[in-house]
């Protein structure tokens, strides 16, 4: 079936995704180099970040949606290594990094979808992006609040319990989604 969108149009989200990934990697590099407590971790962070950037670029170039998750995971891992490598000071821009990760993932998925046989309405797509950005921004705000709370009350047992519970729930959800509850994915006509 002929794709309803031209390949040229799918370039916009693809380039944006790669550009945001690059911004994220550069930000990680700058923040880590400035205050490096464990230089080896900082080097690893930059290496993993660049790998994430390449995976994202490859995923959008070849329209492989399965690789997007790995690319974003590598970027997140790079940030985690950077945070650990920086040492003591709390990174207050962490929720913004989360927001960037969401945008990179969504833009990459959109680029892949627009290259395939998906048809979308412009108005619907615009509403989706507005909804998505608002939700992610609200999440970032909540994350900033939680971060401030965690900084004010360090070593909270409640935070540990909530985090562990959420972790177990997420792993359960991921396993359920993988385990066939969703049924087979139908091929596109």
């Amino acid at each position: 079936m002929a794709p309803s969108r031209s390949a040229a149009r799918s370039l916009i989200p693809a380039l944006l995704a790669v550009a945001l990934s690059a911004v994220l990697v550069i930000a990680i590099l700058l923040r880590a180099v400035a205050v490096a407590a464990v230089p080896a971790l900082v080097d690893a962070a930059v290496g993993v970040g660049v790998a994430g950037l390449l995976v994202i670029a490859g995923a959008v170039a070849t329209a492989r949606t399965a690789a997007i998750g790995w690319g974003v995971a590598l970027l997140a891992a790079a940030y985690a290594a950077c945070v650990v490598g920086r040492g003591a000071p709390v990174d207050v821009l962490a929720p913004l990094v989360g927001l960037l990760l969401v945008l990179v993932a969504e833009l990459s998925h959109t680029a892949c979808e627009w290259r395939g046989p998906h048809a979308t309405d412009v108005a619907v797509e615009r509403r989706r992006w507005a909804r998505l950005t608002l939700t992610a921004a609200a999440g970032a705000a909540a994350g900033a609040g939680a971060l401030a709370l965690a900084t004010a009350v360090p070593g909270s047992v409640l935070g540990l319990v909530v985090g562990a519970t959420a972790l177990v729930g997420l792993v359960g959800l991921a396993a359920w989604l993988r385990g066939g509850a969703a049924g087979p994915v139908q091929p596109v006509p």
Partner: protein
Amino acid sequence: MSWAPTGRLLAYPWLIAGLLLAALAAGRPELAAAAAPLAAVLLAGLLGARRPGVPEVRLAASESRVVEGDRLDVTVEVAIPPEVESLEVGLALPPGAELVDADNPKVVTRAAGERQRLSFAVRHRRWGAYPLGTVHLRAFDGFRMRRFEARLGSETVIRAYPRPEQLRTLIRPAHTHLYAGNRVAARKGEGVEFADIRPHAPGDQLRSVNWRASARRGGLWVNERHPERNVDVVLLLDTFTQAGPNQASTLEQMVRGASSLASAWLRERDRVGVIDFGGTLRWLEVGGGLRHAYRLIDALLDTEVVFSYAWKGIEVIPIRLLPPHALIVGLTPLLDRRFLTALLDLSGRGLDVAVVELPVESHLAAPRSPAAALARRMWRLERETVRARLLEAGVGIASWAKGEPLEPVVAEVEAWRRRARLRVR
């Protein structure tokens, strides 16, 4: 509608879990804070949308019968469920059918109306009976976390008829039938074509008097005329075997030729029947008129080769399928001896038989060795012998190469038959 997670829904929980694990392991709350936007999108996607019901869909075609290659409009009327904002509607067509200048899938939104109609232009490349197609519906939740899909089919069948060839010449049967038609009969009677003059007899109409001849010869002489009659034609299809790939086989060519011949004869108000003589015997008795034309071409579309080892002669053909004085036109690749024997038997019983041969050599690979080349030569000689046997038995035969027009082939058969008639006289 059935649902499936998209790549986002499969990836987000692992990403968040990874960040949370890192946060807990390293004791860095920033990593949990970085996971918060991802978690917010995941939660909103999971809780934000309900699973939609199967939408009401109506699938219709502008025509149920088309000529191959002609455009057909397929309309999909769909009611968009309230749970989704937009719906992708795709039409999956059977092999042999293709879309003409249309986006597929198309998208419909609730904003444009709850019930919408979409049109797809479809073309069938080759003759045959095709299912109309299957409608694929796909929708996403507001965050594209879940994909909802449904497939809805239709029982409507589209019949794509072979495009008939233009035939100005037809094989002229030796005998005409009693019913009125467009062919000048050999016998004399009421008609338009002048035949002869004879002396007047009581009961002759005054208008048939030939006054010039009467003045010259003395006494009254009247004109005799040839009446216009129709003929019975039986198309005998060799369905014992075929050569070539399905889309370009001798069977495909045979159906195309039979359809052209039948249409041409039926246009001339003749009566046409068809017999599939092969592994199974199928037939349609001779008949005329528009309804019979549709029935006949529908029957031709179902023609198929059924392999069988059983020996079959013309005794298995019900006698009523071969009306007296009917012209029998065999279409055959001359590959099966049973069909050849049947043709010779029919001719031997005094029936008027003609054959359109469908050559198979173009379907064969070039011989790669001297032995294969020799075998090919022998095979060619054998086929030449078969043709000679048919001609000797009074059966006109001409070869119709694939891609060539049928008209010269029919003309060649007719010319041979005319020469043969002159020789007999």
